[in-house]
């Protein structure tokens, strides 16, 4: 089990705010940190990694104390058994893929591990290439494998997928999940992406202004209203056109336009640009794979 309890004052654009969180993670669980930009997600990851010093705090990982400001215990990042995947990947441009992985080797680590990891991520063919010549997805894989070389107890992933396109994102989601399971690491992912969170996480922490607003399972945090066979969408009115006695309403939901016929009363008070909630009771949709 991993226990984290830290406090640090942050300098935000809007002034000072206090980051103050206290949470536990099950060993082997997959947890997602979720929250607006500037909420303090990256800061939490870096505090865990020892890259940022909190003003006060306690961190223990599987009964080993990494940080205890009360007792002046503070392991340097080098001694904490973590794997960190940075948002910009932070691959060393001067080294090949293999060298990037080898850089993390220390005496104790088995050298065959590099080959295993390269094979695991289907990177053998690219082992002699420099990172800048790789695609975003390939770079991401290298960063992930590099973070695993030292057999970390915790894997920290800072929005690793946000720069990738949909298809690549899905492939890598599967891969991250697979790695998480086969290496039995505890994984802490920062993500903005609802679908990512849903697919991967056992546990969600929702952060706002440095404080935890909610934590629990994805369904618990997001899916409060259980509306089986009910639909509820938020959209924006694009246009309202008269068509005989009825009105045709164009509503934008995401990038979809819903056209719906409404009565004059319903339309009253509505104008283009208004945010509306669209809900339907007897909704029985047909779902087709694209």
């Amino acid at each position, binding site marked *: 089990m991993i226990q984290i309890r830290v406090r640090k004052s942050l300098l935000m654009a809007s002034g000072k705010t206090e980051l103050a969180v206290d949470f536990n993670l099950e060993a082997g669980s997959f947890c997602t940190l979720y929250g607006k930009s500037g909420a303090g997600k990256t800061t939490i990851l870096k505090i865990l990694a020892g890259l940022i010093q909190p003003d006060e705090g306690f961190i223990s990982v599987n009964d080993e104390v990494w940080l205890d400001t009360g007792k002046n215990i503070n392991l340097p990042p*080098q001694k904490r058994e973590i794997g*960190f995947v940075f*948002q910009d990947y*932070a691959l*060393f441009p*001067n080294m090949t893929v293999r060298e990037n992985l080898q*850089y*993390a080797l*220390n005496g104790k680590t088995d050298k065959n591990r590099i080959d295993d990891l390269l094979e695991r991520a289907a990177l053998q063919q690219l082992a002699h290439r420099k990172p800048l010549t790789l695609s975003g997805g390939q770079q991401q894989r290298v960063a992930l494998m*590099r973070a695993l070389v030292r057999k970390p107890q915790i894997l920290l992933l800072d929005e690793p997928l946000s720069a990738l396109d949909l298809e690549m994102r899905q492939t890598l989601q599967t891969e991250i999940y697979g790695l998480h399971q086969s290496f039995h690491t505890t994984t802490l992912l920062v993500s903005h992406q609802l679908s990512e969170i849903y697919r991967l996480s056992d546990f969600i922490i929702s952060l706002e202004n440095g404080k935890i607003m909610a934590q629990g399972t994805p369904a618990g945090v997001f899916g409060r209203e259980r509306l089986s066979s009910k639909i509820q969408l938020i959209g924006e009115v694009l246009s309202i056109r008269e068509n005989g006695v009825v009105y045709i309403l164009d509503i934008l939901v995401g990038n979809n336009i819903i056209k719906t016929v409404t009565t004059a009363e319903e339309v009253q008070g509505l104008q283009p640009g208004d945010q509306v909630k669209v809900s339907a009771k007897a909704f029985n949709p047909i779902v087709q794979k694209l």
Partner: protein
Amino acid sequence: MNLDWQPLWLTFKLAGITTFLLLLLGLPLAWWLAHTRSRVKPIVEAIISLPIVLPPSVMGFYLLLAFSPTGFPGSFFSDVLNVPLVFSFTGLVVGSVIYSLPFMVQPLQAGLESLPNSLTEASYTLGRSKTETLFRVLLPNIRPALLTGTVLSFAHTIGEFGLVLMIGGNIPGETRVVSIAIYHEVESLNYGSAHVYSLVLLVLSFLILLTVYLVNKRLVKTL
């Protein structure tokens, strides 16, 4: 006209040794400046940059006082180490290191500041120390800045004149570098030798700068 090649050779030796020492000295300094949040940073930066704006005669005057066997550290060097600092190659090296320091530190500092922080952080999380990070990650990735700093320090040391005139003493084979040689040839109306020396330096300086500007369109501006 029989030309004495020794001043040229001496100049390159001086520039080479100075540049080497500047690499050793400039690197930690640049690293510190790039990472510190200390309040004294602008003061340190201003002190390092002083040789760019200070007249060589001011620097020469104070170095002369400091280097003289009755001053410090001149007394230490001449009495304890038995290596006098005035009128000696050693003295020129010390003077040149001070004189060319900003030309090494500023490009290195700019180069280090331009690297994303995450490279350093990644290296730490992979279990590597600060020193290993510097040498295996940071330096290899600021090669253009290293080139610029090295080349400019070298070139600027070659261009040293006023300082050498004051603390060097024009000793053939010891302190008579080519910029001084040119001055004396001109004073002695030996325009022929002055032409040869000057042309060598002009062509060399131009080629050095052109290389820097072509290899690295931005970084000379980081000086």
